């Protein structure tokens, strides 16, 4: 018989939930970690990790049957044959698209920490001060100095490889040695120093892949098969990093197939008392109690849960006494950039499949630059020698054609921009009372659109990359904008934001719900802005920081 009372309950086992479980158990709390989907055990449950391309009947490509079964997932790259089992079923997890919103989810232990892109960047005060400076959204209640020690802390445990660059807009950190630029990238990075006053810099991507061992984990083996699960523990995931640490305390109870239907709230004590769990297999309902709750179910799921909770006190849900709950949904817009061909390096190649590339940190609207839009973007990209697929469009059949296609082709280089999206209260989620999922829960309605600032920025995102590559001598440069709809960045943020004022924010500076101080929300929903670098490292740092605060408050009997 599983206990029904704990010191803390963590809802969700992805990047944020894994960190909450680790921090709270290591500080002595007995923690129940709830996950709505199945368990995935480290290594044992990575069935495709060492498969070869030819082991897949369709060699990884999507089939019509897969497209029919996954009407949302098929809109972009996540629909594929190699790790389909790790993407949530669109049919079992419906939502209402007031406007098109691509919601790509991982409903299993580890969540999207198993499939994430692993790019890990600190945000700077250019990001934390932006809302206040421009009078947009709500001011972040923290500054870089508040979070810097927590970046230090999580980087050491997660294992982030990267280079020290001394750039104010992209602070350095506690990095393992970087995965270096290859010779194509190095050549272009070197030439670029002579242009744009040195402000457009190509640096090695900072990634949650190890270049040195950590306890229980081997360095990256350069397989570049991360999203199949890594048998070496070479990249950060809940399974490789935070869950083993939490388990080692002996104080963690992990409960898969646990759908949290609501946070239980005591209106007299003004505190949450626990959560109600619907077992996804037996459909039985169980109430669990705890002295504090961490919501780490991912932005939209944590918000959906808040909207369903304490509705007897606030019809709009727990946290809705402000006007912020469910509003200001944001993502990173991307899929625009340029690529071209590098000449003069045909006598050079590289070895190993590096699971990262280069990064060009933001340079727009910084250091005196001023554009017609606000904020900025960074680029992720890489150089490599082209492969056999170049032969598809070339003229030729026969033996010489075949043998030539098996050789490495010309060097190519390209970059895709990831742009900041502004907070806008009109971009919102709410409960759709007309539609229920298979568990009887009214589904989430998502109403979100790309704004004028983003469209203006996208022109630069595309054209700047071409200008940058051409300045560095890259040939045959081509631009692209592959189109973007909110959600595609898989960086949902903002629908339960932090702030300084309970009237305009859901959470305070320690991620505490203003209306329920023993409820903490530390996933992407807490973000008051998106900046342009990838957000996951910031979720880790905010979660560790909030857990530290929560335990100290618990000891002072303030929760």
């Amino acid at each position, binding site marked *: 018989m599983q206990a029904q009372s704990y010191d803390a309950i963590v809802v969700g086992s992805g990047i944020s939930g894994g960190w909450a479980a680790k921090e709270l158990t290591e500080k002595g709390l007995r923690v129940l970690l709830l996950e709505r989907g199945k368990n995935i055990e480290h290594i044992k449950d990575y069935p495709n990790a*060492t498969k*070869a*391309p030819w082991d897949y009947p369709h060699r990884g490509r999507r089939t019509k049957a897969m497209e029919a079964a996954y009407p949302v997932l098929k809109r972009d790259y996540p629909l594929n044959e190699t790790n389909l089992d790790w993407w949530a079923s669109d049919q079992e997890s419906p939502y209402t698209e007031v406007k098109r919103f691509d919601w790509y989810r991982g409903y299993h232990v580890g969540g999207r920490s198993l499939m994430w892109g692993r790019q890990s960047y600190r945000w700077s005060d250019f990001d934390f001060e932006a809302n206040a400076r421009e009078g947009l959204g709500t001011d972040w209640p923290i500054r870089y100095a508040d979070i810097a020690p927590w970046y230090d802390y999580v980087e050491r445990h997660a294992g982030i490889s990267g280079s020290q660059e001394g750039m104010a807009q992209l602070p350095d950190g506690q990095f393992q040695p970087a995965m270096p630029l290859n010779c194509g990238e190095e050549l272009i990075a070197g030439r670029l120093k002579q242009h744009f006053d040195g402000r457009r810099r190509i640096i090695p991507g900072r990634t949650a892949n190890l270049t040195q061992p950590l306890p229980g*984990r081997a360095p990256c083996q350069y397989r570049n098969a991360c999203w199949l699960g890594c048998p070496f523990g070479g990249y950060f995931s809940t399974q490789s990093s935070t869950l083993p640490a939490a388990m080692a305390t002996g104080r963690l109870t992990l409960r898969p197939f646990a759908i949290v239907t609501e946070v239980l709230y005591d209106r007299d004590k003004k505190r949450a008392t626990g959560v109600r769990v619907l077992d996804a297999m037996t459909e039985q309902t169980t109430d669990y109690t705890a002295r504090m709750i961490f919501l780490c179910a991912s932005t939209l799921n944590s918000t959906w849960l808040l909207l369903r909770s304490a509705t007897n006190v606030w019809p709009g849900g727990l946290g809705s006494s402000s006007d912020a709950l469910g509003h200001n949904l944001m993502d990173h817009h991307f899929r625009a950039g340029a690529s071209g061909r590098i000449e003069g390096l045909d006598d050079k190649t590289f070895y190993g499949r590096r699971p990262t590339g280069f990064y060009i940190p933001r340079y727009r609207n910084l250091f005196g630059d001023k554009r017609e839009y606000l904020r900025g973007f960074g680029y992720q990209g890489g150089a490599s020698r082209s492969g056999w697929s170049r032969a598809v469009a070339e003229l030729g059949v026969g033996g010489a054609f*075949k043998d030539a296609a098996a050789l*490495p082709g010309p060097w190519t280089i390209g970059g895709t921009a990831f742009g900041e999206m502004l907070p806008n209260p009109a971009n919102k989620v709410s409960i759709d009372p007309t539609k229920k999922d298979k568990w009887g829960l009214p589904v989430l309605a998502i109403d979100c659109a790309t704004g004028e600032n983003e469209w203006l920025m996208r022109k630069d995102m595309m054209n700047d990359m071409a200008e940058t590559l051409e300045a560095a001598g890259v040939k045959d440069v081509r631009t692209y904008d592959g189109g973007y709809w909110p959600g595609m960045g898989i960086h949902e943020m903002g629908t339960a934001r932090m702030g300084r004022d309970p009237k305009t924010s859901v959470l305070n500076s320690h991620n505490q719900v203003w209306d329920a101080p023993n409820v903490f929300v530390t996933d992407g929903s807490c973000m008051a802005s998106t900046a342009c670098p990838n957000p996951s490292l910031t979720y880790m740092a905010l979660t560790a920081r909030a857990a530290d605060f929560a335990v100290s408050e618990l000891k002072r009997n303030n929760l």
Partner: protein
Amino acid sequence: MPEARQVQGIDRREAIRRVTALLGGVVFVGTTDLLTAVEHAHARAATSHAQVGAFTAQDVALLDEVADTILPETKTPGAKAAHVGPFMALMVTDTYDDKQQGVFRDGMRKLNDAGFMTKTPAQRLAFLEQLDREQKAYMDTRPQGAPAHYFRLMKELTLFGYFTSEIGCTQAMRYRETPGRFDPCMPYTPGETAWAGHA
């Protein structure tokens, strides 16, 4: 780093064993299961030359010969040895929409009408060289939204099927499941084949 360099040039099983050692003898529960699963998958990889979906054995044989003319045996085995014919039939069946299937099927009919199967290897090559020029000229100038040329579809599936097959990855190119290290810059000697990617 020296530990990682040791992993170069060894197979997957050995790589996992060595990394287990690197971790100070921590035994990975499930490593054996992992290897067993991979070996089972290898056993299933052998594809028979029978009917595939609506493609008859004769259809598959035609596709095999087309593929083997595009990518014949040289110093490495050709497309037929890599079972590219049945692979094309599978991909058309499972991944092409009705319109693309129609284009592909019409193309097969045209090849049969031209007596492709009765031609000598040299005649087949000459025939496909001409067809390849036609498809390229068409594809380079086709209006937006116009269907692809059937021979472009065949050529794409042939290249994809061959260079992701075991023969294509490990014999025509080079494949290392676990490279074990990253060398960002090394000399390239003309003639060295490419490294195949991971799945």
